[in-house]
């Protein structure tokens, strides 16, 4: 199965719907100008509203997982993703592919782009990050256990260092201990999941020639633990993005839903 397309039939159906919608728009455009108040403009607006309603079903399904008769959650996710993209297309068609001039209509237009755009960003993140994490790191951790595992690493390091030479202790105190206080997310992990780690363990090689045989063994053990900690940092960095994109998506979509209500009110009432 293609990493980016889980279900070709869904993609095909989506593309067919988009093509039909665009074809209808082009035909209508030759007959009369399309703007939100024209007959076809309103029709596209109703279509967009319907698509938005269907898209929201995913949120409901997530809260009704116990009811198996409602179908697979995966199907609702497909509807959510492709329906959302179709919704944005219909919004553009509703506005005649022009930027609205009204305050709430402009915000509605902008938030529609934002919500669908952040949703697409979420898809990209969810497809890309897990692959990166499994391809370049030896450790795989649960995001919510990061603090606990770092603490365990720190304790084991301190236990090892306690019996070692002062030079190794100094090295540990200056170069290793500051990084074991907690998670240290770094932007560089987005660009190279391993490059940052290799650079940061180089000092271990610099100090090794100056240590005795027993301390070298201790240094190697500490290096292994430190490397694991850095990999946990990489995990935290990328997994935070994996979860954090929802901040861009959900609150804004809630506000957009309310603004859609304002839009419907203003259209129906006036």
């Amino acid at each position: 199965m293609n990493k980016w397309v889980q279900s070709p039939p869904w993609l095909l159906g989506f593309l067919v719907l988009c093509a039909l919608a665009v074809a209808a728009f082009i035909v209508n455009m030759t007959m009369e100008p399309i703007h939100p108040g024209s007959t076809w403009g309103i029709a596209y607006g109703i279509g967009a509203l319907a698509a938005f309603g269907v898209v929201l079903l995913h949120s409901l399904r997530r809260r009704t997982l116990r009811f198996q008769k409602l179908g697979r959650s995966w199907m609702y996710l497909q509807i959510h993703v492709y329906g959302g993209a179709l919704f944005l297309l219909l919004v553009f068609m509703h506005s005649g592919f022009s930027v609205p001039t009204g305050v709430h209509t402009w915000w509605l237009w902008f938030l529609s782009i934002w919500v669908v755009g952040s949703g697409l960003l979420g898809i990209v993140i969810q497809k890309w990050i897990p692959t990166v994490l499994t391809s370049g790191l030896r450790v795989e951790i649960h995001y919510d256990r990061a603090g606990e595992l770092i603490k365990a690493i720190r304790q084991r390091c301190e236990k090892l260092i306690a019996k070692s030479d002062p030079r190794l202790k100094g090295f540990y105190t200056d170069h290793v201990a500051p990084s074991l206080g907690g998670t240290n997310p770094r932007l560089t992990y987005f660009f190279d999941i391993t490059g940052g780690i290799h650079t940061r363990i180089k000092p271990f090689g610099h100090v090794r020639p100056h240590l005795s045989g027993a301390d070298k063994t201790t240094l190697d053990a500490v290096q292994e633990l430190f490397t694991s900690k850095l990999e946990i940092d990489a995990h935290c960095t990328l997994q935070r993005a994996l979860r954090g994109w929802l901040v861009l998506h959900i609150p804004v979509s809630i506000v957009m839903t309310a603004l859609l209500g304002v839009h419907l009110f203003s259209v129906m009432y006036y």
Partner: protein
Amino acid sequence: MAESDKKRKGFFGDVRLPVSKEYVYPAKQTFLFWVGGIGVLFLAAFFLIDVTIKEGVLVSNGPLSSAHASFGANCATCHTPLENVSNDKCMVCHEKFGGDQGIYSFATHYLYRSTDFTRLTPSTNEVSCATCHSEHEGREAVLDAVPSAMCISCHEYGSFNDQHPEFEAIGSGVPDPANITFSHTRHVNEIISKVGETDLEKTCLYCHQSDPVGAGFEPISFDVSCASCHLTASSSTDWLPTGGNGVQTLATLRAQRGPGTGWVDYMSPGDFQERSGRVRKRPVYHRDPWILENLKRLQGIMYPDNELASLLRASADVAPEDADILYEEALATLTAYADELRGIPDRSVQRSLSEIDDLMAEIKKRIRDPLSPLDETKFLLGSASVDPDIDEVTLSQYKELIDGLTLTCQKCHSVDNASIGRVSKDQSTFVRAEFNHRSHIIQSGCLDCHSKIPIREFAARDSVAAVKIDHAGIQNLPSIQLCQSCHTPKKAANTCITCHQFHPDKSQHSNLLRYLN
């Protein structure tokens, strides 16, 4: 295995990190909904403040155009809750005369643009003003800049440069029955030789005089353009017999005082010369009432069934502003007819009376509104055939009399069936579009576009063009291709509203309303 490790479920990774002792649930993200909820609360507060205290900026679909900006927050000026913007609201300002079908209706559009008065019935396809005039598109928006696509939704033309029909005057190919003998090349050469005009373009302006705006031209007037050369003091009728089968003298007409002969008091007896039972009028005036009155009388004798048509057509060359006089005269004649018939109980007479009443209604309508085209064929009560009781000799005498009476007239006008052909041609050739000469004359000369009559070829030459290529019936208009060479998407404007207006001229407002109401 260390003691502490025993308590664990296992290890993972190269450094043997402990596996969790219990299932780790992902952290709840309920706060996302709280953040969204706060956003909604802010939105709701803004919305309430906006619609109650402020100007409803939030619910508006955009700023109003400059023309409607003064309505501000008063949405009800145009909007009716739970309904579309109705034409009624627009008409409060735009249809001062009231009524539900005015100048801005589709019915008026059909009437105005087609000049088809059968389309007076209000259209069932009436659409709201807002369909074409889209508001809330910003202060700078121009509401009457209706996109061509709106027109194309009814009119099946791709655009001005695609499938637009030829100008009707060109496309129909029907010669204009100008009823006047006129050679452009002869007159241009006259101006060149007698006035000494050297600029060929300027020779046009000696007769075609611009209106004050420069968009079009005033109708050609005999008094302004022709009188200096034509109908001089020496112009006269032939010597004509009087009485019986002859003409009626001024004295006779004064004594009769028939309808529409008020002019007899002002006509000088000195204009007439009498000699052994014959009379000659000298000089002859343009639209000479004595000639027309006698011609009308002869028509009545020769073509008794033609009656009103003759009456209407006899007053040849009537200017639009004088048309009322003509129709008032027809109305007076009809009324006199009708009054005589009303007391006769015969069924056929009463049927005729009914026809006359219809005709009177038609004429009254025409008098009320000069826009109303009067179908003169309606006034052909019978055929245009000669009265069978008139013998050949008498008929020949009448024809000779008519020729003598219209001797001077026939130098320019056609005379047929004892009537002077009415000169219907004027300067307004485009019925459905406007053309602004002023906008074009800067770039092109008159003859660059009006080239169907070969004025350039015959300018300052001794000869004039043959009648078949130089007569008043030629619509000296360019074909649409010439316009399309400049009015293209990449050059001059080529939208529908560049030339066409949907709504009639406001100056015709009251006239149209009268019909539609």
